[in-house]
C-alpha cells in the first residue's frame, strides 16, 4: 500500500516546476500546486490504483484539472486548502530563485521573446495591446483600425502560435 507521504516526496517538487513552467509565475504556480496537493491529500482514500507510479499519475491528473480550471476561471481554487484548514505556504526569496532556475524560466522567456518576434507585426501589436496593456477588444480594434472580430482573431492566432512554440520548448 502506497502512502501519501511517499507520493508527495516523489512528485511535489516536479509538480511545482510543472506549474511554474505553465504559469511563468512562481506565486501563481504555488497557489495551484498547494491546492492540487491539498486535494490529493483530502481525497487520498478515493485513490483506487496500485503502486507509486499510478499514484503520481493520479496526482498529475488532479494537477491537470487545476490547470484547466485556472485557464477557464483566471484564478486558482482554494477549496481543499480551506476544507483542510491549511495555509498556503509562502515562497522565500531563495526558493523563488531556485524555482526559476529549476523551471528554466529564463530560457522560456527568451523562447517566448523570440517567438513573439517571429509573429507577423499585426499579431505582435494586437498581443501587445490586449495582453500587455490589457485593453478591451473594442479598443484594440480601434487602435488597429480593424473590426472587433478581426482584432480577436489576431490575438487568438498570435496566442495559438506562441503556445505551440512553448509546448515545443517544454
Amino acid at each position, binding site marked *: 500500500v502506497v502512502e501519501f507521504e511517499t507520493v508527495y516526496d516523489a512528485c511535489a517538487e516536479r509538480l511545482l516546476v510543472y506549474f511554474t513552467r505553465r504559469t511563468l*509565475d512562481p506565486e501563481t504556480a504555488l497557489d495551484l500546486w498547494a491546492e492540487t496537493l491539498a486535494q490529493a491529500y483530502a481525497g487520498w*482514500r478515493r485513490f483506487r490504483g496500485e503502486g507509486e507510479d499510478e499514484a503520481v499519475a493520479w496526482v498529475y491528473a488532479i494537477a491537470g484539472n487545476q490547470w484547466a480550471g485556472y485557464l477557464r476561471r483566471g484564478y486558482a481554487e*482554494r477549496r481543499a*486548502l480551506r476544507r483542510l484548514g491549511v*495555509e*498556503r505556504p509562502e515562497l*522565500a526569496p531563495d526558493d523563488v530563485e531556485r524555482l526559476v532556475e529549476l523551471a528554466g524560466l529564463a530560457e522560456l522567456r527568451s523562447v517566448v521573446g523570440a517567438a513573439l518576434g517571429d509573429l507577423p507585426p499585426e499579431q505582435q501589436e494586437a498581443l501587445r495591446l490586449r495582453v500587455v496593456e490589457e485593453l478591451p477588444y473594442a479598443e484594440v480594434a480601434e487602435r488597429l483600425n480593424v473590426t472587433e472580430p478581426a482584432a480577436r482573431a489576431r490575438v487568438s492566432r498570435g496566442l495559438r502560435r506562441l503556445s505551440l512554440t512553448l509546448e515545443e520548448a517544454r
Partner: protein
Amino acid sequence: MSDLRVVSEFREELSRARRPRRRPTRRALLVAALLAVLGVGIATAATGDFPPIGDPLPSPVRQDADQPYSPVTGTGRVAAIRAPDPGGGPPWSVRTHRIRRGLTCIQIGRVVGGRLGVIGDDGKFHEAPLAALSCFGPQRPLPPDATLGQTLGSPSEGPGIPFNGTPPREYSQTGCESFVSSGQSSSPLAVICDDRPRRLVDTGTVGPNVVAIEVRGGGVEERHPIVDGRYMIVRAAPQPPGSIAYAVFRDGRRERVWSARRKRTTPVTSDPAVIRRTAMRAAPAVVGARSLVTVTLRARFYPKPKYGGWFRVTLSGPPGCRRQRRVEFEVLLDRMARAGETLSFGVRPPGLTHTDRAEWCRGRYSGRVLFRSRVDLGTFEFERR
C-alpha cells in the same frame, strides 16, 4: 527530498491537517443536494440575482513599463475572503497585485465569478483593471498571534466608497478624484464624485492563530470570519460608537484590536468676515450638460501662514434630480498652500467611473465649502438651463 523549503514546509503543514473523516453515503449526498437546492433558493431570495456580466472597464492607468507604479500584468489575485454587502448582491473582496516598483498593492470591489469589479450604471458587472488603492512593502508571513497585519480602511470614519465597488482610479478611496491647483495652474483638474450610497470597508491580514474578528458593544454583536488570513467587514454606516472589535484566537483567547470612539462633534465656525475675505466663485455661472465647473477661492481663511488640510464640499442639485440631490466630497490640499494664494478645484457631474456619461440636471446648483469640516468658507452657485 527537495531542496525547496516550501516543499518540506507544506509537507509538514499537510501532515498536521486532519483529513475529512469519511466519504458521505448516497443518502447523505441526497440530503445535502436537497439542502443545497433549498439553500441556493434562500440565498437567491435574500440577495437577489447577481448582475449580468458586461465588458471589463478599460484601464485609466497606462500599463507603462517605465512607470514604477504600473501594475505588473498577470499578478492580480482575488483573495478568498467574501464579505456580504449590507444591501445584498455580489459580495466584496480584495484583489492584490504587484507593481513594477516591487510593492504589493490592493484594491477592493464586488466579486462575480471570481473576478473583481464594479456594478455599473447599466446594472451589469464590469471587471475592473488592476489599480492601486493602497500598497504595502514585501509580504512576509505574519507571526502566529499577529492581529492587524496590513490593514485598510477605518471602521468608523471617512466618507466611504461607492456601494457598487471602487472605481478603477488610482487613489479613488473616497470615490472622488480631487485636487487643488494654485492660481498659476493653467488647467484645473476635476473632482468626480458619486452621490449614491457609500460603504465603509475594513479589511486586513492576521496571523494564523486568529480565527475571527468579533465586534461587540454599542448595540451590535457580530462575528466576522478569517479566510486565508484575512478579514473583511463592509458596513453601510460607521461602526457604532462604543463598540469594540476583538481578535479571537484558536485557543479561545480574545484580544482587543480596535474600538469605535464616541465622536465629538465640532461645531462649524461661521465668521462673516472669513466668508467675505474668501470670496468664492464658480465659473461658468451657466453650464452645459457635462461642463467642468471651476470653483475659485482665496486662501485667507486661516491665520497661519502655511497649512495643509482639506475642504469638505456639499453640492445640492435642483429638486427632482435624484442622483445629484446632495453630493458630499472632500477636496484634499495636495501640498502646503500659502496665505493669500488663489486655490481652485473643479467639479464635474458626479459619475461612478470615467466611462459613465453623467450630466448636470437642469436647474440651479448650490455648494458650500467648509475648511477641515469646521470653518465655513461660504457658498457658490451655478445653473444648467
